[in-house]
């Protein structure tokens, strides 16, 4: 066990965990930030996507010891009032079915739009392809990312 200082959603935390503990489980089990989801644990589905210094990363494959002083943002910290353009677009398009994958989808989309605020449809598909949605909300995810992009502009 070792002590790690983490900056999550602009707040400072300290946790005492084994060095190989993935960030996902630190967030969920230690910090109570349960918005970040577990589904595969092997970086295949994207349900656990968070931002590490604005980059979308799979928190299930990221040992806490590798984070250093990088800034972590989770779905809970994406916006103050749930009104990030991506969240707004997700509501407008009514994207979710079961909703379980959607936090990861939103975090992936938000990071992509930060880098490229005006993606083409192809770029959206490329950017979102690695996130699984078992319920099959892909059409609406695509539509919502394009809408969010229009909102950002």
């Amino acid at each position, binding site marked *: *066990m070792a002590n790690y200082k983490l900056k999550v959603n602009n707040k400072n935390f300290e946790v005492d*965990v*084994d060095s*190989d*503990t*993935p960030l996902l*489980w630190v967030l*969920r*089990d*230690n910090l*109570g*930030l*349960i*918005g*970040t*989801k*577990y*589904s*595969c*644990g*092997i970086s*295949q*589905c994207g*349900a656990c996507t968070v931002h590490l210094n604005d980059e979308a990363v799979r928190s299930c494959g990221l040992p806490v010891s590798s984070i250093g002083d990088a800034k972590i943002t*989770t*779905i*809970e910290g*994406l916006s103050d009032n*749930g009104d990030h353009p991506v*969240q707004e677009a*997700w*509501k407008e398009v*009514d994207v*979710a*079915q*079961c*909703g*379980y*994958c*959607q*936090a990861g989808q*939103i975090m992936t989309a938000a990071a992509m739009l930060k880098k490229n605020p005006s993606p083409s449809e192809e770029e959206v*598909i490329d950017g*979102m*392809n*690695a*996130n*699984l*949605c*078992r*319920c*099959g*909300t*892909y*059409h*609406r*995810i*695509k539509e919502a990312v394009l809408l969010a992009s229009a909102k950002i502009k």
Partner: protein
Amino acid sequence: MNKGLKSNRRDFLKIAATTGGGLLIGFNWSACDSPKMKVISDQEIYDRAVNFNSFLSISPSNHVVIFSPNPELGQNIKTSFPMIVAEELDVDWANVRVQQAFLDTEKYDRQVTGGSGAMPHSWQRLRQAGATARQMLMEAAAKRLNVPITELKTDKGNVIHGSKKLNYGELANEAAALTVPEEVKLKEVKDFKIIGTAVKNVENDAMFTGQPLYGLDVYRDGMLHAMIQRAPFGMKLKSVDADEAKKVNGVKDVVTFKDNVAVVGTGTWPLMKARKLLKIAYEPIDKALESTAFHNSKFDEMLNSGAAEVKRKDGDVNAAFKNAARIIKSEYQCPFLSHSPMEPMNFFANVKEDSVELIGPTQTPDRARNAAAEICGIAPEKVSVELTRLGGGFGRRLRADFVEEAVELSKMLKAPVKLTWTREDDITGGAYRPAVKYRFEAALNSKDELVGYKLTGVGMNSGNSTRENNFPAGAIENLEIKSMAFDSPITTNAWRAPITNFLAFAEQSFLDEVAEAMGKDPVAFRLELLDKAKANPVGEIHYDIDRMRGVINTAVEKSGWGKKQGVSQGFSVYFSHRSYVAQVAEARIVDGKAILDKIYAITDCGIVINPTGADQQVRGGMLDGMGHAMFANLTFTDGIADQKNFDTYRLIRMKEIPEIETHFIDNGIDPTGLGEPALPPTGGAVANAIYKASGQRLRNQPFSNEEGMKNLNLGNPA
């Protein structure tokens, strides 16, 4: 006029007034009874909402709280059910709050999500509940204003008389004191204001900001985390060496029960680590361990045995085949499938002295309760079940195996326990869609007419793998449907659109083969069969011929069937779970690769409650049907699934989806469910389109494993 149902159990009605005011109407869902009533304060409504299952409540502040009893797994019931109540109550949707009800078998009689059955079951009950409350509010207003009730109308939560307006909240107390009407008028379909409009999911805000909604999000003080290593199919536990596992930081204990080895501790990661350090020995129970090659040979053995049970027999099949000018015969096969909802199985159990608290995602809360009661030897009433939102279900959460495990552990450890399955547990842990094989045979006479039809279905723990009374039964004079199942240690369970999820594909493909052999257009051929069934029905018919024709004809029109250049169209139509869906898929071959451009889906599910939700269910069902048909495969070696996670167990991804265009038949018929019916026809439409484009008939799932398809390459992600 649409007449309300008559109340027949007046003693079910109760009126209770308390301080503070507010009208609470409960509706007994089991017998279409008039509602129970209860008055509570606004604060109570919000503070104690979860304690009042079954109630529709109105607060003095004019808020309406509607409790949704059925588990929500993405079928959007938590939005569509309250819409129906709100419609008849005639309130502003913006003032409605929706609350998930706990399990309560006294107040609700079908708190189940499965079989697309909730909507047909509850439609009238929900309307009745809303309409009864509205009627009483109007009576209260009539008294207060001293005018005849016939001069009153309602709008957006107000009772209106001329220029006078009283909102429901201010009438709630007086309404509560009235006798509950025995009979109420329901709205006419044309007067609907909420039903038929696109109402957004009531949990959007919570879902998109990461609020705790799901079973895995349950954390309680003093709670232990648990994971289980389960025995391979056909094996039992022999010995465990847990010394290394117990040394992991955060692991509290390793315990065994039945053939399970459970690691328990203070967090999830320590358990994941510890499991890898367990040294477990298993031994076979009795039979040889099963592998996929064994299943394949069993299928052929069963098909050739002639021992399958006759499910339906019309006419003289033997004579028809003996005298046939031509016989067309084809076999279709599918593998086991895992349900793999994105949220893996999990459950929270807290076994106390003489009660049990259960929280988690289940499609059958009642089954969960009874299982817990039995394990603990207590009465079911002593078990509470709180329903979380389900991160998908697809039928897997109809079972209570994961609930039983959590209860066993909590009982043994004398502590609250959250049991989590890993993805690997989920995919290898059983209760699969059964692997099935079909043999179809069609007899044509010398005039190329279809005079005989035989289907034999054989499967692994599949139960009846046919739907003997479904189309084309009723349209063919000589018909025989047979089924046989093999008793395998590999567990199976209902999987979204049970049996029809593969049967429809096989049958719709075979009908295409028959049409081709006869030189007929596949759509014209199906319509001909329906004409025959209409004019001279053979035996029982369990589908509505006109509704099936309706979706077929609309599909022809919307897709421009047979009129398009440069694309190959494939057709499919299926009736399941009381709804009708026709689909036309469009494929092209580009550089030796099958590209699926688009699928049209025409659905007749009666009245569409919520168009945005309905469109979602159709798309979701189609991508489910198509994705699994193309990619998903679960094979076995010595009782263990070869695929263990999403790296090898392939789900469809965004790059692989075609455009989808959905249409609904607007016929005002009472609504039926939509969670499943769009799935069965999709595989057939896709396979028939690919056949047209490539000349290759796909008879085995997944398509990506079929010989020629390796070259055709359905588009594996880069």
